């Protein structure tokens, strides 16, 4: 373990101190990047929840003049078959966010189990699972997804989420494993064990809460990765082309030769939505990073921005 600790050192959570949660949250929203990311994220979530109310037209209806540029009636123009791009974008957020978030949650849960448990148990189990994790990490993910979905044939939305959740846990498992290893021999864990606490109790109540920031970071990266991967697969026609999502919009834009017809808006809108959503995840993660890792903060400005002090003693 000599070096892998610096590999994952981007986040160095300080051991939990009870009753300090609120200030962590205050710190999170006090961080400009994190707050901006959270704001964007909430806009998307609200958009997905209220999609039927927000969408100006039926996203499937082919009732308008094709290839209209952005206008007051069609903010993001129309498609080759005369559908309203904005309506598709709003309704499509449901599938895209749904896949992304559920795959993110699934991958993170797997990462918690496959990363923490073997590290805690140690010995052969750990070696075995660690090797498995490392193999999963180096096998190129998107090509693997392409192959799997090609066999499945016009993958339904939930299958897509499932496949991505099942293949996307490796990175998180690796990070959580090395963090768990640093806790296993700490006083508070040893004390809990001597006091007769069960393995599950120790893992869930003693170790996991300390890794909350890592778990959150993982959730965000998992979601970001799944949104991007789903869009890629759908763009290649490997999703269900009849569902409406940002990825399938790009697929139809490509099929409908949007660019050759000069209909850039048809491509720009869904792609920008993906990028913006992804950026919100990255921004929140960056904020959490700065919050948990004192060195990433700038000394002076930090003094006005953050909650409680951390044990940052670079000199000692």
């Amino acid at each position, binding site marked *: 373990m000599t070096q892998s600790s610096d590999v994952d050192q981007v986040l160095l959570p300080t051991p939990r101190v009870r009753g300090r949660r609120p200030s962590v949250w205050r710190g999170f929203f006090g961080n400009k990047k994190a707050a901006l990311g959270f704001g964007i994220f909430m806009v998307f979530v609200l958009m997905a929840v209220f999609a039927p109310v927000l969408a100006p037209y039926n996203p499937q209806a082919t009732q308008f003049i094709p290839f209209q540029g952005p206008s007051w009636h069609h903010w993001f123009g129309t498609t080759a078959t005369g559908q309203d791009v904005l309506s598709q974008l709003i309704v499509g957020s449901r599938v895209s966010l749904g896949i992304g978030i559920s795959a993110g949650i699934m991958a993170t849960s797997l990462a918690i189990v496959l990363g923490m448990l073997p590290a805690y148990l140690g010995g052969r189990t750990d070696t075995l699972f660690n090797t498995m994790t490392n193999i999963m990490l180096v096998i190129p993910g998107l090509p693997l997804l392409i192959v799997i979905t090609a066999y499945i044939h016009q993958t339904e939305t939930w299958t897509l989420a499932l496949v991505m959740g099942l293949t996307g846990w490796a990175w998180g498992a690796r990070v959580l494993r090395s963090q768990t290893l640093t806790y296993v021999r700490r006083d508070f864990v040893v004390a809990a064990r001597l006091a007769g606490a069960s393995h599950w109790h120790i893992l869930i109540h003693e170790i996991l809460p300390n890794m909350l920031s890592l778990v959150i970071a993982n959730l965000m990266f998992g979601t970001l990765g799944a949104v991007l991967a789903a869009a890629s697969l759908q763009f290649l026609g490997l999703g269900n082309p009849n569902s409406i999502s940002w990825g399938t919009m790009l697929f139809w834009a490509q099929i409908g030769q949007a660019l050759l017809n000069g209909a850039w808006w048809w491509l720009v809108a869904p792609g920008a939505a993906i990028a913006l959503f992804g950026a919100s995840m990255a921004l929140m993660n960056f904020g959490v990073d700065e919050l948990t890792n*004192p060195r990433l*903060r700038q*000394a*002076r400005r*930090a*003094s006005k921005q*953050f*909650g*409680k*002090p951390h044990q*940052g003693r*670079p*000199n*000692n």
Partner: protein
Amino acid sequence: MIEQEPILSLKDVSVQYDSGPEPVTVVRNVFLDVYPQEILGLIGESGSGKSTLAYTAMRLLKHASMTSGSVRIAGRDIYAMKHEELRQFRWAEVSMAFQTAMNALNPVMTVGEQILDTLKSHQTLTREEGIERAQELLQLVRLNPDTLQRYPHELSGGMRQRVVIAISIALSPKLVIMDEPTTGLDVVIQRTILDEIVEIQRRQHFAILFISHDFQLVSTLAQRVAIMYAGKIVEVTAGATLHDPTALHHPYTEGLIRAVPRLSDDQATAIGIPGNPPDPRDFPKGCAYADRCSLVQRVCREQPPELRMTGSSLIACHVVQQREAKQYGI
């Protein structure tokens, strides 16, 4: 000795850390001079600000700033220097062996390269000359010359500490600041390294600012001892007075003396000081030691005491100063 020009002179130095939610002042109005060739001990509890003071003296503070005072090395104000000037000047005059020798060496460079870097940054010399000098230095700290080719992770803690000391005496500075140079080492190695340090110091005649919280060790090693409490120097005295039962001391120093285990009456006795030092975020208005002091009076809580020549020492305590004054009928 007193007539000499100090090699390091701290005047009214205050330092605050800026990395927390609000700035915290951890070193407060410190005056301290170190004279050529002497060993000055600096003692204080963990967190009293010793390392911070050392970094301030070297102008190496990170996430912190000196809010008042001045630091002079060999008569020159190092905070007025430009970076390049400072870079050339500093190590040649004053060097420092870090408290964390374990982490003071670059893990991806050999010991030899790291010593050579020190020499080359200040002098023009050929590689052969450099290596020769590096080997000399290693010999001084009793390391095998082939240590030059080794990486830090291949060395034991004691060996690394010796390398750090070798680097700190590489340019024959006039003062070496040693920040707890033997923490984390076992007792036997601690002792041998200390003996080596003293021996080298006798031969090379540099001064040492020796930082430690080992009271007994410092009181035997140092000619003069400064005692730090809650960011302030509360007493500066000759090392010998610490073994003199009649000498006047700050109550905190008295506490430290009593806390040393004594093998008298066939049984070891040591009396700790009750209570804890105050939180730097919330230092009291008056004397920081008041809450733990058995002699405390009203004035102690209202007014911070100042370092004054009291008996044969500099002491910052209202009560001791008053007693002394009464004794001599002033």
